[in-house]
């Protein structure tokens, strides 16, 4: 595998399906990527690409009808150096409950849906802190106030006794971040943390996450569909399409020199403020329904450069372009074979 820095969380060959009335729906197909210590990995993709499902596997938060393939592993390296395959843990075991919210913190898109509206912010933070840290109620409360101050909430001594509904959207998202960080996690999974926010507030939250990462040496998985946001926060990017990582590498390599037709298409489809007159070039066609998953390369139904007879029948293997850039596309395997 590429990249040699210290790996904190490693997703290896993740195969995931959901069992439904319509039959088995495959949502992840051999997904592999790594989160390195102190870095941010951006997971980019459109709806149904499997960004959320893959990270939720790491904390076992998926629905009960999930079926995970036998060869799949998610290896977590804890702060004391021990390695655990998270998928081998029982969903209600002591260990996974320690990891969930402890070793791995989570921030979700809609802060209003993640807080309980009937308890104060402080109440919920103290509960989380005492669950994962050895602290008295008083200590936990002090820690919570300190975290709220750290994320830039003014007069935290008063805010801590307010209910989530009394805070504005940006404030709630900050409180959510404070809650996730108050247990001192090693890994933070941020699932579209700024999508519901205004751009001005989004800029503040991104700033905040960046400075906290430096301060606490956290490793972050940042899930988003916004290529602008990901280019500002992520060191590495994995582009996903229908449960496959199609392109994976350093942010600079992937965005400056995209090699997969899907990544290229996404970048071209974005409206650009510097070229107002140009007509947009959409990626043709629709995202296929998960019930009718295409054979071969999942993108071949929309790919402008699909090779007839090849892309529809076989899945391309990843091609290593540089040690920081990996692409799964037949165009590249063919080029390699020719040269």
């Amino acid at each position, binding site marked *: 595998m590429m990249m040699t820095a210290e790996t904190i969380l490693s997703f290896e060959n993740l195969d995931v399906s959901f069992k439904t009335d319509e039959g088995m729906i495959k949502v992840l197909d051999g997904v592999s990527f790594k989160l390195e210590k102190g870095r941010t990995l951006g997971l980019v993709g459109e709806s149904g690409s499997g960004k959320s499902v893959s990270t939720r596997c790491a904390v076992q938060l998926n629905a009960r009808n999930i079926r995970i393939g036998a060869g799949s592993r998610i290896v977590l390296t804890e702060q004391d150096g021990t390695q655990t395959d998270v998928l081998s843990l029982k969903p209600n075991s002591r260990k996974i409950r320690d990891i969930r919210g402890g070793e791995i913190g989570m921030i979700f898109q809609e802060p209003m849906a993640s807080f309980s509206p009937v308890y104060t912010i402080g109440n919920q933070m103290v509960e989380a802190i005492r669950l994962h840290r050895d602290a008295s109620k008083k200590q936990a409360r002090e820690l919570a106030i300190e975290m709220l101050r750290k994320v830039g909430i003014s007069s935290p001594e008063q805010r801590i006794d307010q209910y989530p509904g009394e805070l504005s959207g940006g404030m709630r998202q900050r409180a959510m971040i404070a809650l996730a960080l108050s247990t001192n996690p090693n890994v933070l999974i941020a699932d579209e943390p700024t999508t519901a926010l*205004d751009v001005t*507030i989004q800029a503040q939250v991104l700033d905040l996450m960046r400075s906290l990462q430096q301060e606490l040496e956290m490793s972050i998985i940042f899930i988003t569909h916004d290529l*602008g946001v990901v280019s500002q926060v992520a060191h590495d990017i994995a582009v996903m399409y229908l449960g496959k990582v199609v392109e994976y590498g350093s942010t600079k390599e992937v965005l400056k020199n995209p090699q997969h037709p899907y990544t290229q298409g996404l970048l071209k489809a*974005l409206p650009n403020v510097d070229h107002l007159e140009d007509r*947009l070039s959409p990626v043709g066609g629709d995202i296929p329904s998960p019930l009718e998953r295409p054979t071969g390369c999942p993108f071949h139904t929309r790919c402008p450069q699909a090779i007839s007879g090849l892309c529809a029948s076989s899945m391309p293997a990843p091609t290593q372009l540089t040690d920081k850039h990996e692409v799964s596309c037949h165009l590249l395997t063919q080029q390699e074979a020719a040269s």
Partner: protein
Amino acid sequence: MSLAEQQESPRNEKLIEVEDLQLYFPIGKKGLFGGSEMFVKAVDSVSFDINRGETLGLVGESGSGKTTVGRALLRAYRPTGGEATFHTGDGPVNLITLEGKNLQKFRRHMQMIFQDPYASLNPRMTVRDIIAEPLEANNIEGLSKEQIDERVRETAALCKLNLEHLRRFPHAFSGGQRQRICIARALVGRPEFVVCDESVAALDVSIQAEIINLLQDLQKELNITFLFIAHDLSVVAHISDRVAVMYVGKIVEIGPTEEIFYRPRHPYTRALLSAVPRPDPDAEFEPERLTGEIPNPANLPQGCRFNTRCPMVTERCRMEEPDLRSFGEGHNVACHYAEQIVERFKA
């Protein structure tokens, strides 16, 4: 452009003129014994024109009143003050005072495309019935069943929907196809004016571009006028001829798209633009820090309403509310220090 050309160009013929539009929502009385009534000033004296065939973009943060402006123009709400005139082929119509039958008849001139195509289609109606409903409701145009069917097919084709899709139900369609159904429903009565309220916000990037292109094509073909409400500035920049920036119920800057995006003169517009991250890892991302909270529209600060967050606030801003002032080419700005800002932006 010479005067003669200006008059010929359809872009300079006004379709809608809005002056001092106000929409205050009552939120009860102050004090126990019915003191003064309190209001949320969702839209507070907003004036602008929309020319025939153009797209006016309306941007601002949540709570700025952009959706309320759109709905007030469509008379989903009844404005509490101001003037709004709609210039149809048969002469001007006052949108504020329209009532009853007249309002009902007039509604076919104006339509809306909503944000969420999963929530705005009735799952128990076929696509054909959904698209035909605006024509069949009251049948103001007096069309026969054959004419309606003909119009539905024609509109569906314009919106790039397959004709065999007309018999299906909405659940069978993806987000992009659903949004095309919503567009067909809005356009089937051939409205002159369409409000797009975050119409592409719920769509994936690869689909979003397709819908934007479709809206632009339809605009040309049917000579529709759009009010395009969105929070995504790059989308607005792309589709709009002119852009208005709203902040807590007021327009703080309005002008041609290039003026607003390349030569912004209001500190709020500048802060908004600087906060949009670009998909380029080398691009500098230095958003202007806006501290402070968005004011409560029921309890506005004295003076300029941006003074609680403005990086260049002075004593004057806390006392005196700035009016919209013209800076040429239809570029109007409500800031005491608009002259200095362009200088600062250049440096």
